[in-house]
């Protein structure tokens, strides 16, 4: 192991213990680690966004020769620049629009000029609304209804299948009853209330499954950290 490996192992080990110290009670070590995490992660996202998207997809597109500043191999830079020039010029220069909108978004940091951030916000909202409307309609609405339209009596190669029949009945009536529970325009009374009650039970099973899986997930993450601490201590002793 070289110096940087030791650095990573030791700093990582100490920071892990600092976070775990919260389990005893809140303390300055935990607060230190927590605040450090916030600062490092915010900068991490900025740096990654800058080098992966801002430079190649914005600056490189508007002014392709800039690519050569960030590439070690000049030959490489030349081919990339040539391919960028191949793109339709109006779309290439069109990227000035997100540059301007992006700068306007930053006006949120200055309260007096923050009204300007409404334009990029409007773009973001328009984009999210336009894509979500179509994608949720296709994947989470139409496709789900289609997938629920299944036979309630199932025959397979071996003849009548009791297991699949029961499963399909539970799926169809489970979805319907849970949807009835979500329908608040009518009072949950009589047969409607009874169906809604079944809907609650179906939802409770789903929440129970979700709880079980959540426990599994959290334990797995703890195992990962303990594994790391084990390898850290293993390197010491």
């Amino acid at each position: 192991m070289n110096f940087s490996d030791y650095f990573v192992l030791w700093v990582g080990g100490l920071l892990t213990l600092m976070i775990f110290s919260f389990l005893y009670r809140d303390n300055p070590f935990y607060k230190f680690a927590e605040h450090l995490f916030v600062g490092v992660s915010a900068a991490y996202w900025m740096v990654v966004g800058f080098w992966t998207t801002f430079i190649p997809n914005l600056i490189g597109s508007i002014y392709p020769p800039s690519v050569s500043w960030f590439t070690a191999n000049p030959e490489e830079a030349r081919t990339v620049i040539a391919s960028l020039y191949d793109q339709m010029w109006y779309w290439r220069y069109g990227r000035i629009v997100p540059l301007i909108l992006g700068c306007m978004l930053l006006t949120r940091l200055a309260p007096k000029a923050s009204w300007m951030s409404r334009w990029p916000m409007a773009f973001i909202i328009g984009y999210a609304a336009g894509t979500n409307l179509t994608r949720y309609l296709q994947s989470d609405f139409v496709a789900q209804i289609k997938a629920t339209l299944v036979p309630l009596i199932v025959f397979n190669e071996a003849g009548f299948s009791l297991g699949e029949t029961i499963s399909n009945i539970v799926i169809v009536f489970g979805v319907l009853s849970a949807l009835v529970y979500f329908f608040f325009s009518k009072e949950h009374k009589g047969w409607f209330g009874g169906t809604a009650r079944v809907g609650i039970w179906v939802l409770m099973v789903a929440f129970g499954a979700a709880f079980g899986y959540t426990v599994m997930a959290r334990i797995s993450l703890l195992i990962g950290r303990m594994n790391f601490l084990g390898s850290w201590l293993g390197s010491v002793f």
Partner: protein
Amino acid sequence: MTFIEKMQAIDRRIIFLLIALAVIIPMVFKLVIPVRPSPIVQAIFDKIEELPSGSKVLLSFDYGPATVPENQPMADGLARHCMIRGHKLYLMAVWATGEAQGNITIENVIAKEFPDAVYGEDYIQLGYKAGNQGLINAIFTDLKGMYTTDAGGVDINSFPMMKEVNTLPDFDLILCIGSGKPGLKEWVQFAGDRGDIPVSGGVTAVEAPLLYPYYPKQLLGLMGGLQGAAQFEAALVKKYPQYKDVSSGAVILMGPQTVAHLVIIAFVIIGNIGFFVLRRREKRARTE
């Protein structure tokens, strides 16, 4: 204060200690428990297996260090299987932390176990781009418009394996390892359903139950959490026993996972026994 009352008011730090021990002790004793693949995990294995060698598989790393114990074995397992089958593997990330995780898979699996694999011909790291689902939407119609270079800044058109790839529908299979939004759900919505492309992958156990409605029509198969990753490793070893030693990252961790589950179950039972005993006592006291 009775024993039951004392147990109900137990200091939570004792519970913390017990759960830590439940994880540490099986780790020290290297408790290994056999794992069997479930149909929903086996479906992913079968799909990769049945694709003709040389198929184009996109593997998106949409997670970060926080969920590595669950997600990394999934990514490693899928990459290993694709390389065994001779598929062309395209690595990318919709999460800013994903590129670094993809590099770990390249380093630990592809470079170590498949030294003959050539970068740019057998696998490529496209890296991360910002935009979440906007990125998936952008590359759906023009991948090279967004990825003008690979992650290392090399011209994308200079790689032989990029010659036949221009849009997402050019891929034979999309695999996503996710731990939140954007993740597998967005790949189903913005790529799979839109372009009728087979989508599959693995997610953290927290997210897995939410994706079951997509299975099996919109989602070919699903690995949920560490258990899902361990099941995939088991499926791989069953078919390719020579990978038993390397395909065990998740299986090894299932020992402590099992013991910790048992401890949690014990907590629920003890907690409820105490609750019912005290409630009965209260009722009795009220009637008297």
